[in-house]
């Protein structure tokens, strides 16, 4: 049967050969192309293939390319899909005699993780959008100078540099890198981002990359170069947007063109009227120039916040929009917002744009305030208040004679005019007891109390409570009791006079001080030097009344001290008594660390000779001195840090110059490098001065204990310089900081001796009493108020200024 079957089979073949149809098999029937269109290969196989036949492919998509050049391979590629939607096509593969087969092609939509789009560039502003495919992608936008960007050799180099910069920014904010990045990173697509304060006419690059909060880069760097426009040369106009809430003004200022320097201010309109009158003008620009700008410059220079007009310009100059600024305001008061183009000399050169805003009136308060005076001494009194609610109120002590004839309105005007900013410091809420000090003995005072909010009297009444301070006796009959508890470097002291009415100066003095030396010190150093002879200022800040109880620092261990007190006339400055000393007390001894420090140094070298001998770059040291002294440190023992430097003068006598002096100054002045070059100056006046300098050093252990002070005096004479051939710079290892622009000179191991030599080494240091905390004089109050106003403005502006960097992180939050 089997044989029969086979025979039938053979016979059948011979009669009618049966040729199976070709069949196309594909490795893939569906392919997905990336948006960039990278090629994908699909293998195929034709079963029952025919001699000489090849497959053919067909499709209708213009964006698709299909090739069959390779053996049994269909290569499919596409142009980049820049659309936001995916697209599809069908490729039909045909073969003679075979059934067609299809490959379904899908190309995904634009999938670059990050895409930048610059919307607009002005002289100072950049508007841009960042698009992300992944809404969860975290990224950071940066703007840098083009030069900086071009200097980065690769994405990695740029990123590494940025990461180092982020670490620096985190460090100065006392944050970890992760905390900083978490705060700064943007997430997902953000459109219409504004970056301000660019320099006009400058080439920049905007770039961004994906980055995780841990500082790992997740995408390539994408970037767009742009150039800011030239600055607007015409005048500026300004728009002011002002809102008021809870007695605070919130405002935006928008200049017509950014990138142009301008000055902006807010002032009460009443003050502007005063300026008009004072300067005999109706010109707003002139009034602002004189009343606001020039006057503030004078005050800030006077208080040494700035040294000249350029300092004011650098702090107060604006070039961009001011967003979401705010300030406290008085109620029912008209404020003038103004801005105008100005120049680097702080001169307004454009028309002043201004905007008036009158604040809402302050609601009256029904607070019922009671006042009681207790514990009256020669110099102080307790003010005890009760209130019926928590509405704010002000209590201030004034001499009764000053306000005796004033009705409430006149009194209010007097207080607000003279005390102005200070009133806020005397404004409280709820009942309380407060001690007012620095009162004069045997004097009539009045506590004045009234509801006060936003520069407005809110109660319908002004309370007055009069009292008279106790009478003082003859200063010479005043005795003092002293108490103290000492440590190594500080002491708690208490000075208790028998008569609280007298003004006295107190200090802690070296035990060897005589009464006359104390008086000389007060007169020649404190008043003459510290207060430049202004006794009124000295008396206001330095004279005490009543019991003094303070912890005083800055003392030296194992040192004998005594407290010295002398009563002075508050008006004339006359010493009314001799200096009264406490008994001598000794600060605790120090337990030294088990460390020995020695500074190794020998020859110093003439800098000119070194330059001539080939050390050409050492000529930069000439600005610091005549000669260089190489020094290295040897420390034995387990130390944590050491400091050493050269001080002028022979400081080798520990009796004259106790170790404790160096403990204060060496950590500030000293080098902490293993090796240091010290520039020295020859003593031209005394060629035989062999002890004009002292090398001083100290080391600390891990518990903060310090070693004995190393001190070795030496001279610096031109005739004794070393041979340049023997010069070896030992400071090579001192160079720190990988980022060039952040390298301060000190980090190169060069410590400017100019600074050290000018450091005052007080031969005998006295400790002055703490400054006063309460001011009651009207003149002082006015002056102090003006200072506070200027200082407040100054500090607010300073905080808002950024440092100039090569690249900026763009804040998107």
């Amino acid at each position, binding site marked *: 049967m089997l044989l029969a079957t*086979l025979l039938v089979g053979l016979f059948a073949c011979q009669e009618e050969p049966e040729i199976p149809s070709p069949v196309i098999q594909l*490795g893939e029937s569906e392919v997905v192309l990336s948006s960039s269109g990278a090629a994908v290969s699909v293998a195929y196989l034709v079963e029952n293939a025919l001699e000489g036949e090849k497959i053919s492919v067909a499709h209708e998509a213009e964006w698709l390319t299909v090739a069959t050049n*390779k053996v049994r391979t269909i290569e499919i590629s596409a142009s980049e899909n820049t659309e936001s939607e995916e697209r599809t096509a069908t490729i039909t593969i045909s073969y003679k005699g075979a059934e067609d087969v299809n490959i379904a092609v899908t190309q995904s939509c634009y999938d670059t993780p990050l895409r930048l789009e610059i919307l607009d560039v002005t002289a100072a502003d950049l508007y841009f959008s960042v698009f992300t495919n992944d809404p969860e992608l975290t990224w950071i936008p940066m703007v840098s100078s083009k030069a900086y960007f071009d200097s980065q050799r690769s994405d990695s180099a740029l990123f590494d540099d940025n990461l180092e910069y982020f670490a620096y920014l985190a460090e100065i904010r006392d944050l970890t890198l992760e905390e900083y990045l978490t705060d700064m990173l943007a997430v997902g697509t953000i459109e219409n981002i504004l970056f301000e304060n660019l320099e006009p006419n400058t080439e920049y690059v905007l770039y961004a990359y994906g980055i995780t909060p841990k500082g790992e880069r997740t995408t390539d760097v994408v970037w767009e170069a742009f150039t800011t426009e030239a600055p607007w040369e015409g005048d500026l106009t300004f728009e002011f947007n002002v809102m008021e809430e809870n007695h605070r003004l919130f405002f935006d200022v928008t200049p017509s063109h950014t990138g142009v320097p301008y000055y902006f201010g807010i002032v009460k309109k009443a003050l502007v009227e005063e300026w008009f009158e004072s300067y005999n003008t109706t010109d707003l620009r002139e009034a602002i120039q004189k009343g606001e700008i020039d006057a503030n410059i004078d005050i800030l220079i006077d208080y040494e916040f700035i040294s000249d007009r350029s300092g004011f310009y650098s702090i107060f100059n604006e070039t961009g929009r001011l967003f979401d600024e705010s300030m406290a305001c008085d109620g029912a008061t008209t404020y003038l917002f103004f801005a105008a183009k100005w120049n680097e000399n702080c001169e307004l050169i454009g028309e002043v744009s201004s905007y008036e805003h009158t604040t809402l009136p302050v609601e009256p308060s029904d607070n019922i305030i009671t006042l009681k005076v207790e514990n009256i001494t020669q110099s102080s009194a307790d003010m005890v208040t009760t209130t019926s609610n928590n509405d704010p109120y002000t209590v201030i002590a004034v001499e009764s004679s000053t306000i005796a004839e004033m009705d409430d309105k006149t009194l209010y005007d007097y207080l607000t005019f003279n005390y102005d900013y200070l009133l806020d410091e005397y404004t409280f809420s709820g009942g309380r007891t407060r001690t007012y000090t620095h009162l004069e003995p045997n004097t009539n005072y009045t506590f004045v109390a009234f509801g006060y909010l936003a520069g407005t009297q809110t109660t319908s009444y002004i309370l007055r409570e009069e009292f008279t301070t106790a009478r003082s006796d003859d200063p010479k009959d005043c005795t003092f009791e002293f108490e103290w508890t000492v440590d190594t470097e500080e002491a708690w002291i208490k000075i208790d006079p028998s008569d609280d009415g007298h003004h006295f100066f107190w200090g802690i003095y070296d035990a060897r001080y005589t009464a006359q030396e104390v008086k000389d010190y007060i007169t020649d150093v404190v008043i003459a030097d510290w207060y430049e002879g202004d006794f009124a200022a000295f008396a206001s800040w330095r004279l005490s009344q009543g019991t003094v109880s303070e912890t005083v620092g800055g003392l030296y261990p194992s040192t004998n001290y005594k407290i010295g007190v002398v009563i002075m006339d508050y008006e004339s400055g006359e010493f009314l008594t001799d200096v009264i000393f406490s008994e001598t007390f000794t600060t605790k001894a120090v337990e030294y660390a088990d460390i020995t420090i020695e500074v190794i140094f020998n020859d110093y070298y003439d800098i000119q000779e070194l330059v001539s001998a080939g*050390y050409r*770059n050492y000529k930069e040291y000439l600005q610091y001195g005549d000669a260089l002294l190489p020094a290295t440190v040897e420390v034995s023992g387990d130390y944590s840090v050491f400091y050493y430097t050269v001080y002028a003068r022979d400081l080798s006598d520990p009796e004259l110059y106790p170790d404790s002096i160096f403990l204060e100054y060496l950590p500030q002045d000293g080098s902490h490098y293993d090796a240091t070059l010290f520039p020295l100056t020859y003593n031209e006046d005394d060629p035989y001065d062999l002890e004009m300098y002292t090398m001083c050093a100290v080391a600390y252990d891990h518990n903060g204990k310090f070693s004995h002070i190393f001190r070795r005096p030496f001279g610096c004479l031109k005739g004794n310089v070393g041979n340049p051939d023997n010069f070896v710079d030992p400071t090579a290892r001192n160079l720190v900081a990988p980022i060039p622009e952040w390298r301060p000179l000190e980090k190169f191991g060069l410590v400017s001796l100019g600074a050290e030599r000018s450091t005052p080494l007080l031969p005998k240091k006295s400790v002055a009493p703490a400054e006063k905390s309460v001011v009651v004089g009207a003149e002082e109050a006015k002056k102090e108020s003006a200072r506070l106003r200027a200082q407040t403005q100054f500090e607010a502006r300073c905080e808002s200024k950024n440092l100039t960097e090569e690249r900026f992180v763009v804040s998107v939050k």
Partner: protein
Amino acid sequence: MKKLFNLLLSFAMVALCASCEGTPSDGDDQKDNLSGTISLISSRDIIRANGTDVATLSVLLTDESGMIHDISSKAEIYTSESDQPLGSVNFSTTKAGDYTLYALYGLEVSNDLFLKAVSGVADTPADPNKASTDFDHKILLIQHTGTACPNCPSVMNNLKRLAEDEAYNSKYVHIASHSYNEDDGAYSSAATILSSTLGVHSYPWVSFNFFETKEFLGELESMKSCIDLFHEPQASVGIAASSTVVDGNIYTHIELKAAKSGIYRVGVWVLEDNIPGTQSGATSSWQNVHSNCLREMVGNNRSERLYGKSVGSVEAGKTVATILSAELNEKWVEGNCKLVVFVTTEDGNGKMELLNTTLCPVGGSVEYAYN
């Protein structure tokens, strides 16, 4: 009877096959049960177009479980120039040019593999002592520096003294990695990669091999101590190399001979001598001319650039050859360029260990150095 049955069955099968014979399939399906994605890899990126230099190809299949199977003997490998499969896993040619290869395995197609065949690349020098594996050992001494670094001349002075010390100068290859300031004529991105990889955070700084040193080692005695520490009496690999400049590329033909069996990587860095640049803090005029400056590290990625390209496993006493190429930058002075050729291996802890290194002039050669 059973014999007869089998005979008839055989006959019948032959008859059936003969009856259905047509033209051969467009592709010979040799695929067995394996399925997955296939990839084509090569032992070499560059071969010499001399008909004998060979790149050994492998076709690997990764199945769904992630297991990798070597299917080189079952797959077909083609060049884009021919419809005929290679018929071998070895590719050689006498025609210089760029080649694209791919593999087919059933209905799977591999990636494109690009190979370069180059004419004119010199032979490596003949082995002067074929029976020996007692190789001389050299370490890398890397000076991290820059012309704006005012304290770097002190280390330059120390390096000069070290180079003059015959007890030490044959034990190391000196590389100056100018990564400090970008306006340094010897500055390079390769140097910044090297310095950052080695954890350099202050200058001057000195590193040895691939060790991230934690303390300053630029003092003469420190450097000598480190050389004493790192230098071995015998290297575990020997290096012979020649270099040829062809069409603006430096081709470095390297032969590695193993004293110990291992899996090795071979790297090439380009150095340039005599680069002028005023040195901050210079104490002598010679410090204004900089040599051994790292210009480029050869490789397709950071790992290859730093630690070399894998040449696979090499048995003790055996050799393996490879060619690495670098573009000759037009800013470099060809006559001042030379190559650091080195061999690395992984130390078992995931870190790369430098086993030996040598210097090869561009356009010149270096033979195996035996003790």
